[in-house]
């Protein structure tokens, strides 16, 4: 059985809520899920993950949330070979700022550079929109489910 790891970086908690929603969507389809804040994840854990879903908000001048930055730093320093790792990416941001959704791009770029393969499209929620993040998360996760190995 495929285990889906949902890994989030958050500051105000919205990305954690989205991570819970994504895990629930996969859980409803019979997948085993593990939800973890990026501070609790070692870069060396990644290679063993079948599917890793990254969820991150963007802070300040387009920066990573405090809880995601050390993980990203470790990725760039340790540079593990991630070929064979499949990941998906969900970002949260607010389009009143120019650097809207920059953090998930930062994470995605690092993962791709290290050989990981992205599945699905990168979701970019806009807090300034009228769509709640949980709604987008649910719809996005369902689309992602159709791309999952049987």
């Amino acid at each position: 059985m495929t285990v889906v790891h949902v890994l989030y970086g958050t500051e105000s908690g919205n990305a954690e809520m989205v991570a819970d929603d994504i895990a629930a969507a996969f859980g409803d389809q019979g997948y085993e899920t593990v939800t973890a804040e990026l501070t609790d994840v070692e870069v060396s854990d990644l290679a063993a993950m079948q599917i890793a879903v990254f969820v991150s908000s963007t802070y300040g001048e387009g920066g990573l949330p405090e809880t995601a930055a050390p993980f990203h730093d470790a990725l760039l320093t340790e540079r593990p070979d991630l070929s064979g790792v499949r990941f998906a990416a969900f970002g949260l941001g607010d389009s009143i700022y120019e650097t809207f959704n920059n953090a998930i791009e930062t994470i995605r770029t690092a993962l791709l550079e290290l050989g990981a393969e992205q599945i699905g499209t990168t979701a970019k929620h806009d807090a300034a929109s009228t769509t709640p993040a949980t709604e987008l998360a649910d719809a996005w996760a369902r689309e992602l489910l159709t791309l999952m190995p049987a």
Partner: protein
Amino acid sequence: MRTPAETAPNRPAAAVNGLPLQVAVIGAGPSGCYAAQALRKGQPDIEIAVFDALPTPFGLVRYGIAPDHQGAKAVSRQFERLFGQPGVAFVGNVSVGTDVSLEALLENFHAVVLATGLGTDRRLGVDQDPDARVIGAGDLIRLLNSDPDARLRHRHAGPESLGSEVVILGTGNVSADVARLLSKSDLDFIASDVDDDALRAVAPNPVRTIHILGRCEPHAAKWDASMVKELAEIVGVHLNVDGVPLLGEPTASARTTVNVRFQHVPVSVRRLDGRVRVTTRRAGDSALVDHLDADTVITAIGFDPSPAQSAQFGGVEASNVFRVGGPATGRLGNLAENRKLAADAAKGVLEFLRGQEPLHRTGLVGLRDRLPASVVSFEAWQRIDGAEVRRARPDRCRTKFTTRDELLAAAAGSGALVSIPTATPEAIDTTGEVK
């Protein structure tokens, strides 16, 4: 990294004879809600009652985050989810210390978390004419957010115009919020929930000149650069920092000019010919004195506990009383900071509870006879919420009720403002949920 088994929701609980632990949180603002959220994540079967003196939850998320920053307000969706869980109750319109005593809470709950925020704008503490027009930024933002208790609403003649020239003291995000709210045009408020009547009362015309004075050097300003940039990018606003335009010279004439000046330490606020004169000394060279005349001075220099909060909870010390947010740190901080602090505090609460001898506590059920009849449950709040969204102007996301009577009428689901609803004590069932 946690294994699936470790994240399973039903870990052994420190329940007493099979009964859940009971925690009361006083204050349904972000810190109180984050603390409740972290308590439930750490101990999923813990029962929590979150009290608030207002009929509405979310505290400063509703009344302190600027109404044109709806993205930041979306954090309330997390809290809606929290209150949607069985075992988590919102107990609104109940003032702890007045309607129900803190002692009563301590008798009925294993622990009490004080999350009462900081309700008052910090005073300037300089030589100041008592009748000079000086208002607090927090008070102004509460007014523009339709807080029914906003002090500026309750002036004898209602909120009055701030005039065409305003001085804001302080260079934090609250200062940037005020400058932005006072310099935006009506079009810039599309999709916000700004209190239009209040905004028109305080700014019948856009404020023409805004002076922002900071004591520190520019690099030490507490505001986020993105907030200042947002202000400078409003169409019709021209922003200068120490005389230098932030985004180049304006192509068209500015509606509002914002002048930020650093290293100006206020020494006095005087009334002069019906206006206000702010006198400052230059940091580093106190012989350099400047005078600025304006119609109104707005202080944005931080927050303190309100006198009522201090009287009620200031001296309370007990091993099962915990503090989060403003009462713990003495400063308000942003959501992210307070979430982290609330999560740490929740860990402390759970450690304390797990280390205690089992005591029988009934939680909200034990208080049923002592709560006022006009208590507002989360379900009743959702009726207020729905009514505010339904009555919104087409270009606003909601139009808030501005009085407690209106809020309570909407809570009862009645369109009539005259009948104030009452929840009978029987409406609280034995599961502890307020119906």
